[in-house]
């Protein structure tokens, strides 16, 4: 179910037997000519599912942060990958849980438009294509696929496996592993060292084991995270609607039968579980993007766009390091994350935010958190640094019209000015008419690819001079030499004492010699 090359996916194991064998339902025998016809069949029995799904982020792509009041969600936000889904839904809404969103005309009130199969197909053969045509520059991106066997996928439905969620979440940012660093196709069939929970041979968790759901609402949000969960496992028999480690492991997860366990539990209030238990990101042989440079986009050979593949990732596959339609990419694998105090509250630079270009890099998302903030803990992050177009006159980010079979689409005309003007105009945003490039950074909290306990970070990784937390200052932490003045005074005192003694010895020898001489 991949969007670019669509390799065949071997689905993960189903999570226990169902009380219903969907292949025997008359409603699902077909024939079906399209996705919405399957959806109608699903909803004829699951008569609340449609209403439920239409309230979720997977459907609305809209989220208003109750704390900051900021309007977020893919419908609105500007990121520092392909920059904006808005206005490019014909391409980007491949990952919308619905059929046919290509422009403003999409009907968010029609339950038939819901795509049940993208989450519930268990054959591994279901796939989606862009909702509208792009320019010829993008035509090569999609392999020919055989038609979907609608009755087969409809009858296969079950609870989502990793490949279902992963068909979108592993490919965010424009390709396998690009966006997150801790989410990529290697997790479809993970081994123990890659993720102790998703290990095919071990616990084999589906995403929804942690991201528990009620009425199709899934727990776990990076707009508003539980940076510090003090709720623990909750009361016996009562599941908490959160995706935190603590909701299963409790808030004192290390065995208290040793000094080590006690000391580790002493960290829980200040250090996120992920910080020690995810020693490195992109460990599964799939690279993640850390640097994107739009400034170099638009180079042509013989009047045509091209790609360079100068990176071979751990699993042997080539990755594009340059695309005319996107610019230059820098990848990383198996790398230590960045660390920061994080209180769970993400603030975004939106299309409406005016910034001062002197403050580069502009944070696409930022957060607060400090050593003395009880809600904050030290979290691992993947940081993405990008040079991307902005409105030089208004000092705002921009919506670009990238996708479309028209003359304004950047992926075809390679003309930023025109693509930005079109993107801003069609979404009713002011544009000064002059664009430039600005450096931005985005911060992606790391929480997947949890290593087995024996691979967790040792104490000395952080408790050391130039350790992993060297950049976090303003609090005392042993092992870093955090009291340099005291240390200098102390060592100086010891040195002076040693010097004094040496002098005294010398004096004694001199006096003794003189006495012997006299």
């Amino acid at each position, binding site marked *: 179910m991949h969007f670019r090359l669509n390799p065949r996916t071997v689905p993960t194991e189903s999570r226990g037997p169902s009380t219903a064998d969907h292949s025997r339902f008359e409603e699902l025998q077909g024939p079906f000519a399209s996705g919405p016809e399957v959806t109608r069949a699903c909803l004829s029995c699951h008569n609340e599912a449609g209403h439920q799904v239409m309230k979720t982020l997977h459907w609305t792509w809209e989220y208003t942060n109750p704390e900051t009041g900021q309007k977020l969600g893919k419908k609105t936000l500007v990121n520092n990958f392909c920059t904006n889904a808005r206005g490019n839904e014909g391409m980007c809404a491949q990952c919308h849980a619905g059929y046919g969103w290509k422009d403003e005309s999409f009907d968010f009130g029609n339950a038939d438009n819901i795509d049940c199969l993208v989450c519930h197909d268990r054959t591994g053969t279901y796939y989606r294509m862009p909702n509208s045509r792009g320019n010829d520059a993008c035509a090569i991106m999609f392999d020919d696929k055989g038609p979907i066997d609608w009755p087969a996928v409809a009858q296969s439905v079950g609870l989502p496996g990793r490949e279902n969620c992963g068909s979108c979440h592993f490919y965010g940012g424009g390709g396998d592993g690009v966006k997150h660093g801790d989410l990529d196709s290697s997790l479809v069939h993970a081994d123990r060292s890659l993720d102790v929970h998703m290990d095919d041979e071990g616990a084999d968790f589906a995403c929804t084991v942690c991201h528990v759901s009620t009425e199709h609402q899934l727990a776990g949000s990076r707009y508003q995270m539980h940076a*510090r969960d003090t709720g623990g496992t909750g009361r016996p028999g009562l599941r908490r609607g959160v995706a935190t480690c603590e909701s299963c492991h409790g808030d004192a997860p290390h065995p208290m039968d040793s*000094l*080590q366990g*006690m*000391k580790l*539990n*002493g960290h829980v*209030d*200040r250090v996120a579980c992920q910080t020690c238990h995810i020693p490195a990101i992109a460990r599964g042989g799939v690279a993640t993007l850390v640097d994107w440079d739009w400034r170099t986009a638009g180079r042509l050979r013989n009047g045509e766009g091209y790609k360079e593949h100068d990176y071979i990732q751990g699993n042997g596959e080539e990755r594009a390091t340059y695309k005319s339609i996107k610019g230059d990419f820098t990848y990383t694998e198996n790398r230590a994350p960045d660390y920061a105090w994080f209180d769970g509250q993400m603030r975004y630079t939106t299309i409406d935010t005016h910034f001062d270009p002197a403050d580069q890099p502009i944070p696409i998302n930022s957060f607060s958190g400090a*050593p*003395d*903030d*009880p*809600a*904050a803990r030290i979290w691992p992050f993947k940081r993405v640094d990008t040079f991307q177009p902005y409105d030089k006159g208004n000092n705002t980010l921009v919506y670009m019209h990238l996708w479309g079979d028209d003359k304004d689409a950047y992926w075809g005309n390679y003309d930023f000015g025109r693509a930005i003007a079109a993107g801003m105009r069609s979404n009713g945003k002011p544009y000064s008419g002059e664009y430039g490039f600005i450096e931005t950074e985005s911060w992606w909290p790391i929480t997947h690819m949890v290593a087995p306990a024996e691979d967790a970070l*040792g*104490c*000395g990784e952080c*408790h*050391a*001079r130039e350790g992993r937390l060297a950049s976090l200052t303003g*609090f*005392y932490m*042993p*092992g*870093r*030499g*955090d*009291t340099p003045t*005291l*240390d200098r*005074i*102390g*060592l100086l*005192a*010891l040195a002076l*004492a*040693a010097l004094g*003694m040496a002098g*005294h*010895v010398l*004096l*004694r020898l001199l*006096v*003794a010699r003189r*006495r012997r001489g006299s």
Partner: protein
Amino acid sequence: MITRSVRIFSRFERFWHWSQMALIATLAFTGFAIHGLHRLVHFDAAVYLHTGAALGLVVLWLFAIFWHLTTGTWRHYLPTSKGLWRIARYYAWGNLRGEPHPYRKAWRRKHNPLQALAYLVLKLFLFPLIWVTGIAYLTYDLWAGAGAGNGTLTLVAVLHTAAAFAIVLFVMLHVYLLTVGGHFLGHVAPMVTGFEEVELTPAEAAYLEESEGGAIRSEGG
């Protein structure tokens, strides 16, 4: 006055001294590693050793305090100004001129006044300081609420480390002074064998010979 070889350091006292030395050396070595002054031992190993040695020293101290109180040995540390000036003068220049050490160990007073004062300061100020801060440090997770307490921890760590520097300084002087006014080994020997030449009144000598037979060596023996 007669001079006799008397056991001035009992077996427990010697055990206390040397095990305390080993524990303090371990604590200093691992403590400075934890603080970040050296990396000769892994951080986690240093933490476990440091904590273990500290707990060991607590137990040793409980015994030592009990021993001092019940045997009356604590009186050896009572400060006195009597002879203090002479001792200070000796360490300042008398020893350079090869003068004999002005202090004669007495059976009831085995430390010279300066020495007793130094040990008293160590036991009344430095050791309590490092104990209080060390226990506060060890139990940090129990008293510091999340987000609060790091400022206090900084203070605790600074005092703990400062006390550690002071104790190392003490140990350096302590060892160095063993070379002053006699031979190093000669000064160390009593803490190994327990016996040292001590001036006794005839009455003390008679008492020791009569009642504490093992604690005094026969004349010329």
